[in-house]
């Protein structure tokens, strides 16, 4: 094999190797740029790989009023898309929180037990409720999940 051909082969191999390495990292296993999405029941979902972070929207916390209690879900609990998996209590009302996707709860926000007000202060950041390892990532493409623009429009039309 000529030196030029060898060089070309090495370059091509290196490119393939780097691409293979990139494709096999977790962030590309379910590769997508996933911004926040919302259900019409006002839960949000943020995805990183196969982990979905779930909470309630800023609109929801404003409507509920002062949150006084958040039921912390159980780790390893299996949830089905559309099922209620926990609830948030505000003054007089216990409001169900629904799973936007199916999977297993792998992490919960324990801070909400002692400081439920975090959910009012920063619902879409530090006020997250649970992280779900998705069992069916294709559920992310379902029609009931709205992007931020569509959710904003939904709120305007509902008011």
């Amino acid at each position, binding site marked *: 094999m000529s030196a030029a051909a060898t060089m070309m082969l090495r370059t091509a191999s290196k490119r393939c190797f780097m691409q293979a390495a990139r494709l096999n990292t977790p962030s590309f296993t379910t590769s997508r740029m996933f911004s926040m999405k919302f259900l019409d029941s006002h839960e949000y979902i943020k995805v990183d790989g196969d982990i979905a972070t779930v909470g309630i929207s800023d609109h929801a916390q404003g409507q509920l009023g002062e949150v*006084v209690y958040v039921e912390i879900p159980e780790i390893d609990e299996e949830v089905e898309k559309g099922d209620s998996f926990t609830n948030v209590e505000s003054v007089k009302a216990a*409001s*169900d929180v629904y799973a936007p996707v199916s999977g297993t709860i792998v992490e919960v926000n324990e801070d909400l037990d002692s400081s439920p007000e975090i959910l009012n202060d920063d619902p879409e950041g530090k006020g997250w409720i649970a992280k779900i390892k998705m069992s069916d990532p294709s559920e992310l493409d379902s029609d009931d999940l709205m992007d931020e623009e569509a959710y904003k429009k939904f709120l305007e039309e509902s008011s």
Partner: protein
Amino acid sequence: MLRYSSISSTFRKLQRGMKCIRLHTNDAINHHHHHSTKPKVSYLDLQNSGLSAIERLCLEEALLRHDPLNRSWAIVGTHEPTEQMHLHNEDGKIRDNNSCLIILGIGGKPELLLDVDKVKKDNVLTVKRFSGGGTVVIDRNSLWTTFIGRTEDFPNVDPYPRSIMSWSANEIFDKVFQNMKYDTIHKSGKVLKKTMVVDAKSCGTAQDSGKTITYIANDDSSAGVDIPDFRLEENDYILGDRKMGGNAQAIVKGGWLHHTSFLFDYEDENMGYLTLPNKRPEYRGDRSHDDFLVKLKSVYGSDPDDDSAKRAFFYHVKCAAFDSFEMEEVLLKDAMKVVDNLGGMQAWFDGKCRTKVVDFE
């Protein structure tokens, strides 16, 4: 003297501009306003049903979450605190105590809300219910009302706490307590009668024009009867400045539940199981339970007896409901089919039902 045939129409017209005592006739219950925008609601009367308080909570949650017909409901009744019709205590968890039942909201922490030592010593059955809200002590003198609203039936009620509270106060209980007030004034005999000349342009018919009629005004200060008015204050139903009922809600996809336990009467010593909660409404201040609560019996009386007075309360709730809803009365056995579909009351209670007995051990 008014002719009977003109009473109802004349009083309806008078009510528009003046406050009058509302006469309750059979027409008030049986006359359905055939108005297409009225929500359809199933009405369930649990007075003398035999259901315990816990069983009622189980039934309510089942109707909210699992009614295959997705109905809206209005449910009224009283209950023996702990005498179970369906639930048995084979595992020893459901204890018999016929004095009262303590019911915490779903997030209630017994150690913060109760004198736990006293509760344990007196062996008082304590449960957490599926709805939010505070702690109530229930006995056979507690009057319950529950409304389950589906958003498709109540499009103008946002499924959020404040909206639901406002709706319940404005649409139902303002009417109920106004009519209870009028009834009490009327029964006291201390009524202020006034006369007026009928003007056919504003009231009455042409043939009544020029006639002098006598009507009863609710000018209670003149009548010497002092009955505090009902209003919604923060999240409480109050009479004057005192609370007379505990409210709680549960909100699910497509609907909501709002239930209230009213204090017709209670044993003062039972309030001793409750501590002063850390989170209190502003209007309460630091008042103890005795200074903060009021018994409906002490405001409206119990003439001729307690049972009649309780029935009168539910009568007024039913009237208000018939005014606001397109009602269909349902029997308990039909409502219980929803629970039967879940495996029966015991299976539902032991399983996914969120009302649970608090174990102090």
